């Protein structure tokens, strides 16, 4: 099957504008601006079934249609914060197929009436920002960015903006705060960004991968896109595979591909390191609920789409599949994840600020052999006490591995009698 997103793997030098154009690039953008109304563009995207790739899986076309047409100007923002442990797909897109991403962003801008687009990159992505800046300049030179594009009254500028080291800035309202030059702390919602976003103006925020789908959807049609994947999860997805597999990496596959294929497929993960068995899967990075595998074929044969993964009492999220084999102690895993979330909690709301701090304290005691039942109970209770009460999803994220890990792998939390 031909690639939809990672096309640079088949087409050498796709990042060069002439190569990109030769392969049909930028035609969809020009066509949209000169021949389609914004509403028509939104309709195609809606009909394609494209869902946001940033984790929440919200319908992209639907989100675009929410943009408040009464308040101006509009902004569009690409979320290139990519900081979830286990996620590294957006970086590959931006480094190797940057023009397709930029084209998607440009089409999005046209669809929602934005004349300014920002790409919010995690602060560590300096080299990526350099690549994008160069590509933006090339597009401008070639007449694809700037004023009155293709002789219409549509104008567009794209700017990169580097964060400075804060996972929370991937949360869209924290991202907006950060982009406004403030501390990256989430905003109260509602209002949602499509009504009140950047500089209090209507703003659409999408993930890099989400945008990268759009040129191909416009070029090939909604039906073509829907023909891939499953009924509830249309199209293809980049699965970032990491952990104890032989070949970690990004793999573009249609939704509905099984875990087994991703982990064991020769072209993909090629099996578990040292030929051990899979103990658990974290399908959405450090924020995942733990999927118990322990060699269970039924689990490995579960298709990877939003609905099916839910039957395993987990979320697919950004599809950052971390594989844990039978040498890994879940106790050690939650020690790592809590440390991460404690470090990344923005501190704005009480349960997350205090909860991650205390969980981190308790989990250290729980890691040792002399753990007590009291500490285990306390850890569980703190985690549960946080769930559903935080201002943004990070708080809940921080508890997922803890509660599911403890509940589903009790053998790793035994108390010495």
């Amino acid at each position, binding site marked *: 099957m031909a690639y939809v997103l990672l096309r640079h793997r088949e087409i050498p030098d796709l990042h060069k504008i002439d190569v990109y154009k030769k392969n049909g690039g930028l035609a969809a953008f020009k066509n949209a601006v000169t021949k389609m109304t914004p509403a028509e563009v939104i309709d195609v995207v809606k009909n394609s079934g494209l869902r946001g790739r940033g984790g929440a899986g919200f319908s992209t076309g639907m989100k675009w249609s929410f943009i408040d047409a009464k308040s101006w100007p509009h902004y569009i923002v690409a979320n290139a914060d990519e900081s979830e442990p286990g996620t590294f797909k957006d970086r590959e897109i931006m480094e190797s197929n940057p023009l397709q991403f930029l084209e998607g962003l440009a089409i999005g801008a046209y669809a929602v009436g934005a004349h300014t687009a920002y790409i919010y990159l995690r602060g560590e992505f300096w080299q990526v920002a350099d690549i994008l800046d160069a590509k933006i300049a090339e597009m401008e030179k070639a007449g694809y960015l700037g004023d009155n594009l293709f002789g219409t009254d549509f104008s567009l500028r794209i700017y990169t903006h580097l964060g400075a080291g804060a996972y929370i800035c991937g949360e869209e309202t924290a991202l907006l705060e950060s982009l406004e030059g403030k501390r990256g702390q989430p905003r109260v919602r509602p209002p949602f960004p499509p009504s009140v976003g950047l500089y209090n103006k209507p703003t659409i925020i999408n993930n890099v991968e989400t945008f990268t789908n759009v040129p191909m959807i416009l070029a090939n049609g909604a039906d073509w896109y829907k023909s891939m994947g499953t009924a509830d999860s249309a199209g293809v997805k980049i699965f970032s595979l990491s952990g104890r597999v032989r070949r970690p990496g990004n793999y573009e596959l249609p939704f509905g591909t099984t875990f087994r294929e991703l982990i064991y497929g020769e072209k993909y993960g090629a099996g578990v390191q040292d030929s051990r068995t899979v103990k658990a899967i974290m399908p959405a990075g450090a924020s995942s609920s733990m999927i118990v595998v322990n060699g269970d074929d039924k689990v490995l044969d579960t298709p990877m789409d939003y609905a099916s993964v839910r039957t395993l009492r987990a979320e697919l999220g950004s599809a950052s599949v971390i594989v844990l084999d039978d040498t890994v102690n879940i106790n050690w895993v939650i020690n790592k994840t809590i440390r991460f979330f404690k470090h*990344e*909690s923005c501190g704005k709301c*009480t349960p997350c600020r*205090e909860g991650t701090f205390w969980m981190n304290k308790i989990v250290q005691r729980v890691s040792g052999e002399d753990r007590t039942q009291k500490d285990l109970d306390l850890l569980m209770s703190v985690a549960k006490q946080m769930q559903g*009460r935080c201002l943004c999803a990070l708080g809940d994220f921080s508890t997922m591995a803890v509660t599911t890990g403890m509940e589903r792998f009790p053998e790793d939390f035994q108390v010495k009698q």
Partner: protein
Amino acid sequence: MSKQVTITINGKQVQVPEGSGLVEAAKLAGVDIPVFCHHPKLEPAGMCRMCLVEIGRPMIDPKTKEPIIENGAPKIQYLPKLETACTNRVSEGMVVLTQSEKAKSGQYATLEFLLTSHPLDCPICDKGGECSLQDLTMRHGPGKTRFILEEKQHFEKPLPIGDLIYLDRERCIQCSRCIRFQDQIAGESVLGFEDRGRGMQIVSISDPEFDSIFSGNTTDICPVGALTTADFRFGARPWELQSQASICTQCPVGCNLTLNTRREAQAGGEIVVKRVMPRQNEEVNEIWICDKGRFGHHYTESKKRLTKPLIRKDDKLARASWDAAAKLAGENFAAAKKNFVILASGRLANEDLFNLKSLADHAGGTALLYSDMGGGELTQLVGVGAGTNLANIGKGDAILVVASDLYEEAPIWWLRVKQAADRGATLIVANPRETKLDRFATSKIRYEYGEESKAIAELSKKGKVADEFAKAKNAIILFGSEGIGLTGTSALASACATLLQETGHTGRANNGLIGVWQRSNDQGAFEIGFQPEADLDKALKGKAVYIVGADPVGDDPILAKALSGAKFVAAQELLETATTEIADVVFPAQAFTEREGTYTSGERRVQRFYPAVAPKGDSKPDFAITALIAKQMGIILEGSSASVVFDILSHSVDAFAELSYARLAETKPQWPIVGRGDMYYGGTTYENKQGMGIQLIPTAQTEGTVRIPKVRKEAALHPKEKEALAVPVNKLYDLGVMIASAELLEEHIGKATVRMHSSTAQKFGVETGQIVTLNFEGLDGEALAQVDDTVPAGVALVPRSMGLAIHEPLVGSLQLKTQSGKGK
């Protein structure tokens, strides 16, 4: 009234205004939802998660757009998660459960989390007894901790984050109320969070730290004991305090205060004022006060307080009886006949001023107001209409501030004017130099010192700013005395009044003229018939002078000279001053904390203050002293009861006709509700139980169009090549008696400075920090030079009441002070 919606809280149906916040709506319905980060004056933050409740909303049929009805009632849909009440607005049919098991468990969890990081030092915490965390823990919280106390974060106990405010980082619960107050209300973002997660701490790295004159308010809204004032720290426990309503005497705003008092061993068992707190008056100061009002009150306890009458004997002041002192003064005043002059300050209460004016009238003398600002008759004519409330000024309205550095002269007006601009009001700031208000101005008008009346007259012509002002639904002008003296301000007031009348902005609430007076009750003095005098030295020379509440000798060498040539001087004062030093007889007066009376604010609101502590020594209220002296002259004035003086006043002065002490003590329901048991909601500001005061009705409101007297003023001064123009400006923290003796503020007062543009400094060869001698007509003195490029070239700004006797613009020169102390 806004549209009402019906919601159900804890099973009770209530009607509340559509769109109001859920916490507010619940409060109206008598249901308290616990909050920490939420404050009714701040934007919702939704961060502490204390207010978690269950919220259900009627399900809407997507086809009919009507609520789905099930079993005869609308079908309610609850979100799976608890929601924060503080970030939700009410809508029709909403169902709220604040006490369900689920809601309670959420609230409990938040409390437990907050307590895990909180030190348990309630027994020594200043906030103990009025702490929201303590209160809510008693009500809803856990009794025991499940955490290991040693693992808590520990910090060095209170550290100053400014010279007036201390921060205890262990107690802080990161609600950000203080940060948001500084940001949203005060417009001075000098507080912030440092770090993130549990490491988050309040900091200020401004220079000086916590650089805001509103800093004290953060201690009122801090829900725990994290922020405390240098004044009150370890001062007393809140439950030991008595409270008494009062009015701030520091500026013409007239902020409502509550004085907290306690018997104090250190003060010899006397009752003393432990702290000054804001008292809610949404029409005057809302729930805020400035730091000068909060910390400046210590002058009333100064060691220099006069406690006994004094009579000059053999060139020395010696203790005397009240009778002897009053007799001496009475005889001299009576003998002087036409040459009897009363010089009184706007620091005095209406009752005092009324008795003084009556005395002058009956004895055939003159009553002069000690001020270099005129225009009081114009605020009486077209002053703001009764019912004016700056909080009602917003979009479509206009405020013009001219010749005033409002931030320094009337901080709470500055704050409220700024908020009006935030709400969308057109704000025009006219001043020869940049002031702090400029940041919020829609338009700025720069004129040259001396051209202020012309600048206002320009606004009656066509032009963008003029049109905006003319078209405004409501318009208010605040005029001050920056750079001008008596005739200048009178002329400016007249120009402003004319503009207001021409544009139809008189005779109604939220329209008219406000004087930014130099003292708290100058407006009252004008109402009672006092007038300032331009040639004061001439008016005093050779006369029998009765000086009340003023220190002309200390302020101005020219006046000192005039008074040394006076026939007789009686001084009535709180404290020893240069004037009492030279007086023939001295009367000790009571401070505003020791007696009752009324003041008239710049917005012409008459407000009562009440005695809170016992009088010092044998001091008496000013009106009573005047009555004693009058008696010696055969004139009968009321001297025993302030309320009786006020009754007579209300029968003699038309503007006061309808007023009485009883009416002034009336209150009405205010919003937000503060000062009750639910301190976590509005903070520790006191509820107003002792009177919100009443605004006087200006002539234009009763009679429509009024004749506005034209005031001519001399032409603006233009200094020559080698000269500079010295102009007076007003400074918040100055050397006036009511502030200089407040120790806490000493550093803020600083030294007298002259500020000038770098080009001016260059011309006179001086640099910042050098001492210069001023040599202007009638003004001699020394001051620190300060280069400041916001000052127009060729101008030297000289602060009033900083030991330099400047009343109006002067032309002259400055010189670097040489070693010998003389100018070169």
